[in-house]
């Protein structure tokens, strides 16, 4: 048996990859295929599908009513990504330039929020942000600093805040990895060659960490685009994202084919965004 494996490294590789591959085929590729297939079927009366081909769902999904929700979600996810990058880059730089011990401590601190459930943490934000009973508005009004409650809740601001909070570590970790791999003598060389700090950053640090920027951005953008817990709780039922619409199609409207159509379009958009980003990075890097 072992001899056979030694003689046939291809077989060995196949055996090693088998568990992961079979798991993904059953639990990822099949459902994905089902979702795409459902997009072309008609809805059943009480959920489920009727096996007859139609393009109606996809046509409905690009109707302005829903397409605007797509655009709005993409804008929110894009803003979330940019804000995560603006906050995360300096933070990752700070962590990467510390001594080993402080580095580990800071990375741990970054992960601590993940120890509690995402839903619970989002509820915590709810108690802080709520318009009339939220801690922030109550405090500020109690102190007499404001007369009217600030619009902290039930809008895009609240959603973006929640998403940034939730996905910031996913931005910081790849950036940290990229920055800690950076050879410090390259920065010294740039400085030696008359580049002031600003240009050391734009010409050397930034281009060499672009792969980290791309990885972090994708890791933040994709879950933000499909988010539904955060907009459901912090959007206050008024401000919705495409994730909520899809959620409703499956659980409330029992229109599985239409929910599938929306999902298929979203998967397509994510694929395009990811490809575009990698293209950009490869050209610059």
């Amino acid at each position, binding site marked *: 048996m072992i001899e056979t494996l030694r003689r046939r490294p291809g077989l060995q590789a196949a055996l090693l990859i088998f568990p992961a591959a079979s798991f993904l085929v059953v639990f990822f590729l099949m459902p994905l295929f089902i979702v795409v297939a459902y997009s072309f079927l008609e809805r059943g009366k009480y959920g489920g599908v009727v096996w007859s081909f139609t393009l109606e769902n996809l046509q409905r999904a690009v109707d302005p009513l829903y397409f605007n929700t797509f655009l709005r979600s993409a804008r929110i996810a894009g803003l979330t990504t940019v804000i995560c990058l603006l906050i995360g880059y300096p933070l990752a730089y700070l962590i990467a330039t510390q001594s080993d011990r402080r580095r580990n401590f800071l990375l741990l601190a970054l992960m601590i929020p993940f120890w509690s459930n995402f839903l619970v943490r989002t509820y915590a934000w709810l108690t802080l942000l709520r318009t009339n009973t939220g801690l922030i508005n109550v405090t500020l009004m109690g102190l007499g600093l404001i007369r009217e409650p600030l619009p902290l809740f039930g809008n895009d601001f609240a959603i973006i805040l929640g998403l940034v909070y939730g996905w910031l570590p996913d931005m910081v970790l790849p950036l940290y990895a990229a920055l800690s791999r950076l*050879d410090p*003598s*390259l920065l*010294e*060389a*740039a*400085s*030696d*060659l*008359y*580049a*002031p700090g600003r*240009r050391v950053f734009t*010409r*050397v640090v930034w*281009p*060499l960490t672009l792969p980290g920027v791309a990885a972090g951005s994708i890791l933040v953008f994709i879950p933000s685009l499909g988010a539904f817990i955060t907009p459901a709780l912090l959007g206050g039922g008024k401000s919705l994202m495409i994730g909520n619409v899809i959620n409703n199609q499956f659980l409330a409207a029992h229109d599985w084919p239409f929910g599938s159509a929306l999902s298929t379009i979203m998967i397509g958009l994510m694929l395009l965004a990811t490809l575009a980003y990698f293209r950009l990075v490869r050209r610059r*890097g």
Partner: protein
Amino acid sequence: MSASYAVELVSVTKRFGEVVAVRDMTLRIPDGEFFSLLGPSGCGKTTTLRMIGGFEMPSRGEIFIGGEPQGYRPPYQRPVNTVFQSYALFPHMTVYENVAFGLEMRGVSREDIRRRVAEALDMVRLAGMERRRPSQLSGGQQQRVALARALINRPKVLLLDEPLGALDLKLRKAMQLELKQLQHRVGITFVYVTHDQEEALTMSDRIAVMNHGLVLQVGTAEEIYEHPNCRFVADFIGETNFLHGTIAGRRQGALEVTLDVGGTVLAQAGQDIGRGQPVTLAVRPERVRLSPGLPGGEVNALSGTVEDVVYTGVATTYWVALGQGERLMVRQQNEQIGAGPVAERGEKVTVSWPVDAASVFAQASEAQAQAAPEAGA
């Protein structure tokens, strides 16, 4: 502070917390010189170079470049450029972009950059490599890109931090000569850091030998090789025999030393050492003559027994036991084919050397020189 010095360090000390990396260093490097900082790792030579480049700031003292005090100027405001140990070429840029970087940062026009990059690449024999990435070059080629990238800026001083360390022996030898010729051609002052004494001797106009953050001796290759001023320098540069003895007096303007192994020898007095003082005598192996038989009354002759004979091509090395555990290494040039060894193992021989071939160091001052830095470190 005369402007004829390219680099001048005045009482420069550098501390990293408790550790003193460079101690009260004063150095003057004239314009156009190939100057080496030589010493074992941790002796402070790289720290000195980094202070000149502006990557570290002195804790005390002042550094002048071209007569101008540098204070706390950052690297990008200093008229020096550096060739880094690992070359530090920008991996995301082509050879052209790497070499052009300094000029671009200083706002030189596009046409001038193009012309000067072509010149610089020509100078290091890399014309035609403009579009390559550093990862597509050999170690020697990367090294030359690093040189071109620094020299294109026409700095007052070029700083080189063990730039040949990563190359194999053959290439290193070739690059030593090439660097030396290049320096002659461009006429720029080179400050070169190395732990390789042979490299320093080959290339430098002058060498500063460092240990424990102190400059022990500054001089030409010949000066520090032939007239080391302390045991450390004698030991670090080339190979040396050390014999222990006591000053017996003065004779014919030379010091008379009674050796612990017995016998009396004469040696040139580098410093004034009093009678009765314990001393160490340093003799280069190639200055010692070996002859069969017992001494016949010549000056500086000792008798011993051949312990080992090692043939190394250009020379043959003999190990001669003098008694009391002291051994002398003797190296004789192999000038003729088939001459064979002068003496066989176990043979009684006479070893002798000219009066000016030996250096004498007082053991007390040596102890001081080594103890002082350790107290601080």
